[in-house]
């Protein structure tokens, strides 16, 4: 992504407040616009209001799973929102489901900031190759 292009808006949804705060700080430090939510319902509301480019979604969320939220985001947003799933669980089925939901990356907690930014880069590259992200 060139400097002239606007940095993507990233929706981060995680029910663990410290993680949410840390990820927000980390991503904002790299000049991304970050919106956060603690659960599925508020995540869907934020997606409707902010129309994010990338969604970083925890899988175990109050009110539904991250996969269900991904489906809601797909039905709410007109654009193709790139998804990155994050989880502290070791369930291999989650990895499979993430791939099924077209995730650009699946990160197992705890992950390093480098791993997170690699995933964000992948999402941005995917947006670029699709013509700037607006679908």
């Amino acid at each position, binding site marked *: 992504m060139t400097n002239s292009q606007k940095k993507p808006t990233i929706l981060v949804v995680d029910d*663990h407040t*410290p*993680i949410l705060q*840390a*990820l927000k*700080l*980390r991503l904002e*430090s790299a000049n991304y616009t970050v919106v956060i939510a603690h659960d599925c319902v508020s995540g869907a509301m934020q997606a409707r209001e902010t129309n994010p480019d990338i969604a970083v979604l925890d899988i*175990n969320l109050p009110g539904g799973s991250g996969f269900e939220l991904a489906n809601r985001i797909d039905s709410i947003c007109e654009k193709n929102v790139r998804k990155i799933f994050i*989880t*502290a*669980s*070791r*369930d*291999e089925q989650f990895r499979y489901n993430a791939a099924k939901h077209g995730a650009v990356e699946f990160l*197992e*907690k*705890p*992950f*390093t*900031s480098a791993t997170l930014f690699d995933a964000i880069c992948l999402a941005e590259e995917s947006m670029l190759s699709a013509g700037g992200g607006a679908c």
Partner: protein
Amino acid sequence: MPSVKTITTNNDAMNRKAGAQEAAAKALFDLALQPKTVRTADAAVSTAVTKILLIDDCPLDRKLICQLIAKSGHSYDIAEADSVSASLTMVVENAYDLLLLDYRLPDGIGPGYIAKLRECANNFHLPIIILTGHGDEHTAIESFKDGASDYMPKDDMSTASLFRAVNNALHKAKLQLRINEQRREMIEANEILKAKNREISCFYQTVSHELKTPLTGAREFASLVMDGVVGEINEEQKELLACSIECCDSLKILVDDLLDAAEFENDGMRISLQHWAMKDIVEGALACVGLAAQNESADIRFTCEDNLPLVNVDKTRITQVISNIVNNAVKFATGVKSVDLSLTLNRQAQQLQVDIADNGPGIDAERIEKIFEKFYQVKDNTESKHSGMGLGLYLCKKIIEAHGGSITVRSSVGEGSVFTFTIPFVTQENNQLQPA
């Protein structure tokens, strides 16, 4: 020695037989549909008097057989039936321990009759001894094929032979019932274990989630501060935060190892195979341990043969093995630390071999035998500063074995250790996947 004569059939008898066969078949069908209770070995054992049903159309034969049985001096409760159809009702209504069945009855016993009779009795191991006056081999073979417990020619029957046959058949049936009960108990126990395993699996998932979630927050906050995201910090503060992050990473490895070991005990090692170049995996693993090695001022060298065949492995798991061994090498070495890795081909064994040599303190013969055991820790006064649960090498062994390879170690105290593991490479014969 008493003997009995068999009756012969005539035309009238044959005609009666055809009609009776039809009636018997219908009766069998109806009776098979009736609700049943499960018969157990204990039920058979608890019967004080052995209940026998004698099915024979000849009253004289029945009388003689009853006399033979009575002479044995044992208490048998003998009921009599003169036809198939009569016996069916009796079998359903009474829990007989054994049937003595004449092979030739007016209403006939066609193929599969013995099985149907047992089905009606709701006892699939009900002993049935076939009695006939036509003691040819063919009849015997057909009886056994049809599921008879034994076969007795009436002409040669004596109290002793009948008693022996009855006892043998009862004993065999009792054993069969015991086996069935034990099998059922094992199946039930297995189901309970499976359910427990599912619970344990669920528990591991929960533990993993609950431990790693706060760990993620702790690591990321330390990382944010160390990276200067929330303000500048000095070098000393950076070093302290780096230690904090390293602790988080160590804790993550411990949690993962513990859960891996638990899951392995529960479900076996789960691996996801793909074709990889082992060289890439080794280099990737070394990149992962690079920072730790750098902090420990370790010199890590890697040599590799060219044009090596691919391996069919779980990349994450093999990376885990290499990282674990290299991390141990760096952790335990003192002074100028060096780790030499080499990747070579053993074409004859169709394997790639990875050697990881360190210049650490070495392991003595007594300890080296236990080094791959679960929860075994190499500890002495000089090494006690290094903590761990003793799961790393145990998991390494399980991972390598799950790939069809082997892992060994040779060591000299004061000189260092060499860990060697092998992995089968992809050949035309075992090539089932496309390269990743």
